[in-house]
């Protein structure tokens, strides 16, 4: 049994004096897809932010590749791709410029990612061919989302943490994104995803939150 990629032990989260998650423990292995489900306000986004290190209002232990995550923050961030509610795409820049700054801020150089497609190729693959140079504010909501999703193609990462990635995506795009996620898992990457959609993926595990007073269920 190989070591888990991400291990969560006795995680407790509170928000506004309400207990969201109590005593959560699970493991995420390479090649696994875990969907976090629950009604609005059940703590899905909070959990994802805690797991990414954006929020430290929690009790419990987080382990990354066998070591405590707080000791290997840089390594964890280098291998994680986080795409939240707010995509982080700058409206005044073009899709290509956006992808470029995101990669450069992460410190990804061409040497790190020889197998990744070029930025233009990735934009073409997500359906933004011909829109590489226009400012993002001229695009539709769905197209803006696709710029964020192009990151999945160009950013090398072992763990994908996606918060509601299917927002504003049409049916065709949903199928494509599911294909991307499946492909990532097949190559040994892991995916942590929240979505209101019913996902059609192989090997999908589900973590149910919001069952009352911090209770949860995983299968």
């Amino acid at each position, binding site marked *: 049994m190989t070591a888990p990629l991400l291990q969560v032990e006795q995680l407790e989260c509170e928000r506004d004096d309400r207990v969201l998650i109590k005593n959560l423990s699970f493991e995420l292995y390479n090649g696994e897809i875990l969907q976090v489900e629950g009604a609005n306000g059940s703590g899905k986004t909070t959990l994802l932010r805690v797991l990414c290190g954006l929020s430290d*209002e929690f009790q419990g232990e987080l382990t990354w590749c066998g070591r405590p995550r707080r000791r290997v923050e840089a390594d964890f961030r280098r291998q994680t791709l986080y795409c939240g509610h707010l995509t982080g795409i700058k409206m005044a820049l073009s899709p290509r410029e956006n992808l470029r700054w995101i990669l450069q801020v992460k*410190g990804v150089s061409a040497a790190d990612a020889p197998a990744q497609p070029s930025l233009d190729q990735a934009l073409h693959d997500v359906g933004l061919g011909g829109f590489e140079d226009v400012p993002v504010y001229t695009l539709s909501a769905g197209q803006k989302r696709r710029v964020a999703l192009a990151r999945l193609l160009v950013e090398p990462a072992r763990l994908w943490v996606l918060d509601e990635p299917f927002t504003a995506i049409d049916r065709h795009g949903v199928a494509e994104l599911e294909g991307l996620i499946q492909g990532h898992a097949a190559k040994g990457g892991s995916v942590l995803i929240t979505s209101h959609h019913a996902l059609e993926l192989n090997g999908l595990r589900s973590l149910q939150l919001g069952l009352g007073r911090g209770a949860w269920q995983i299968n």
Partner: protein
Amino acid sequence: MANQLEPAMWSGMLAIIKRDIVIAFRQRGDMVNPLFFFIMVIALFPLGMGPEPGTLQKIAPGVIWIAALLSTLLSVDSLFRQDFDDGALELTLMSPQPLFVLAFGKVLAHWLVTALPLICVAPVLGVMMFMDVNTIKVTLYSLLLGTPVLSMISAIGAALTVGLHKGGVLVAVIALPLYIPVLIFGTSAVEAAAMGHPFAGQLAYLAAFLILAFTFAPFAIATGLRISVNG
């Protein structure tokens, strides 16, 4: 792994500087409004206090410095607010690069885009306030040394309050007491030059503040950003 970190750290900072400058030039309002504010505030003083050269010459150092200070304060809201609202701040926080380096880059870009225009326009306003050439030169030096410190201090305030949608007055209340040493030595340098006294000491103090601010402020800014994104 370690070898790849070195160039990447600076490339992250440079990427942010380049990105912010490009965005500032495309959204010119954030760049130009502090400049107009600076000019208008200085123009208010002759209107409010009478146009006699004697009076204006006397108050000119203080007026130009306080106007620059207030312009910096006004412009700081645009430093992190947009990044916070569109999620770019979270992406920056998720970067494996040290946050204080990236934050330093952001403040530097902001200074280049908002304070540098002020410094370029200051000589014209100095002439309007009847300052002589030497005094104007020293004003430029003092602003060049002092405005980055003001930017760093306002950035600390902005980082602590970016998650709150309460407007810039809170940042003003936080930052203004911390501006005072820079203001004192900045105006003193200009006044000394106006009277023909030596001013190098005051400029040296400003330079010392600059080094202190560059060394320590980025850590406070980074901590403030993490706290703001946390909540």
